[in-house]
């Protein structure tokens, strides 16, 4: 599924998990608590900012090499 190809890879998740459990980086993982409007803006901004890399991933997924016998 294309949508699955857009999710973080296992390596990216491992890096994120290591960072999240590093006390030095705790501020990077704090909840954003500046009101509902700001939260919505963050979500929209994250979606917009991700578009170029999503497109890159989607292209990479669509033109990936498929081993013979795999759908």
């Amino acid at each position, binding site marked *: 599924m294309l*949508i699955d190809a857009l999710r*973080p890879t296992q390596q990216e998740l491992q890096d994120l998990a290591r960072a999240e*459990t590093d006390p030095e980086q705790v501020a990077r993982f704090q909840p954003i*608590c500046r009101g*509902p409007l700001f939260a919505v803006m963050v979500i929209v901004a994250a*979606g917009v900012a991700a578009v170029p890399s999503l497109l890159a991933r989607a292209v990479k997924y669509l033109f990936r090499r498929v081993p013979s016998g795999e759908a």
Partner: protein
Amino acid sequence: MNPTEVIVVGSGISGSAVARTLVDQGVRTHMIDVGFDDPVLRAAIPDAPFSELRATDPQQALYFVGDRLQGIPPPGIKVGAQLTPPRQFIHREAGRWLPSLPSDFSPLQSTALGGLGAGWGAACFTFSADELSMAGLPEREFPALYGCAAAMIGVSADPASAVNPWLWNPAPPAQPPLDVDDNGQRILERVDRDRARISRYGVHAGRIPMAILTEDLPPRRANPYFDMDFYGDSRMSVFRPRYLVSEMRRSGYFTYTPGHAVLRVRALPEGAVEVLALNTQGGGPVSFRARTAVLCAGALNTGRIALNSLGLAGRRTTLLCSPYTYFPCVNLAMLGQPAADRRHSMAQFGGVLLSRAGDSVDGVFQMYSYRSLLLFKLAKEMPLPPRYGLWVARALVNALAIFGLFFKDLQSDAKALRILPGPPDEIPTLQFDYAPSEVERAWRREAEQRFRRGLRRMRCLPIGRINPGDAASIHYAGTVPFSNPLLPEFHTNPDGSIERLPGVYLGDSAPWNFLPAKGLSFTLAANGIRVARRVAQAL
């Protein structure tokens, strides 16, 4: 030493309740169990709040993600994805000692000291008289049994909760209720303001009873609201069956033998039983003898042992499993808002989804906040690069409300298990054949639709519907039922013994003919007490 009178197989909620009742009555009891545990990792978790540990503990990765990063679920994992590293002993080597063929039905089976109870979410519910009757249980005995179970495991409950008529009735004695976190509190306030409209969809919400202490019950202590309950057993506040096993080990009437996976049981001519088990450290079968045995190995494994004992390899027996779906939601009242640190990690509240006619409980739900499961797991679910997924997770985390919805399950020809023929000295492999009918699936879809409408009315916006698979509820029953339409000669007698296996009783949910939508653990404890009393009387 005096000979054992009763062998109890398994140390889960049923097994520990059966054994504790027998020991209290002065019956010499021997518990046989695989019994894996992880006291070292448990002890490595400091007794401190989640936020303090996150900010200060340099060793936190050990228990939050594991030394081998085992807390990061690999892609495609079907069983145990929800277990944090300190809880993963629950199914250690399960593939070896509780083998099953891979299928769409991928149950979580436990090899742990405490069985699946070692990871129980602690929600306690009483079955109604109708539900008990449909399951084949004596409904008149249960009000008193529920009281005994509450005293045994320690329950906190709100005597005035709006959902008590369906979920906690009659209400056994309990400690004062737990505090609800900010996320849950905002939703419950909304429910109080708009109860009439929300109930039009059959949705009723309120605080639910939990096997979590709010007052000390030595040696156990009240919950410290550290939000670490998915990882450690802080102050032993959340009930775990191993506490009962530890207590019993101090009694002269109790022996505990871990490291053994039971293969089969046999009735001996002199009115005794023999239990054959494999030592998990290696070697051939080991024989244990007693006057009586009580199987409490979990419905699936109890079914396996009973089928194997009667030489019924290849024959299909019934299987019940509550269907389960969960809905991650955004609680709009908490979006972008700060939340207090002080909270427990288990279900903040719960409720029922009534039938359209309002006369029966179609579904039971529980609401969890998310924080202590860490943001990287949220980012994993988002179709975004990790940096941006993390932003979204940080914006959403305080407002995330995860609603798990359970349904009831009925016997059918298309829900079955069997054991595969194999060598006599090997644990037989289970094969599942679980396919709810199209009528059942359509009924669930309609119920879920009503539930989603109720959620929206609670100002909780569903952002997904996750069906984790048919076995994911971890609520299993009915493999040796009182009434077996698939294999009539393979059933449990009204006195709890297995037909054609005199002296062998069932103490778990294997005999039930029906599985309500409610979590079954509390009823397992009450039923364990009932079975143990009968066994003690029959000695």
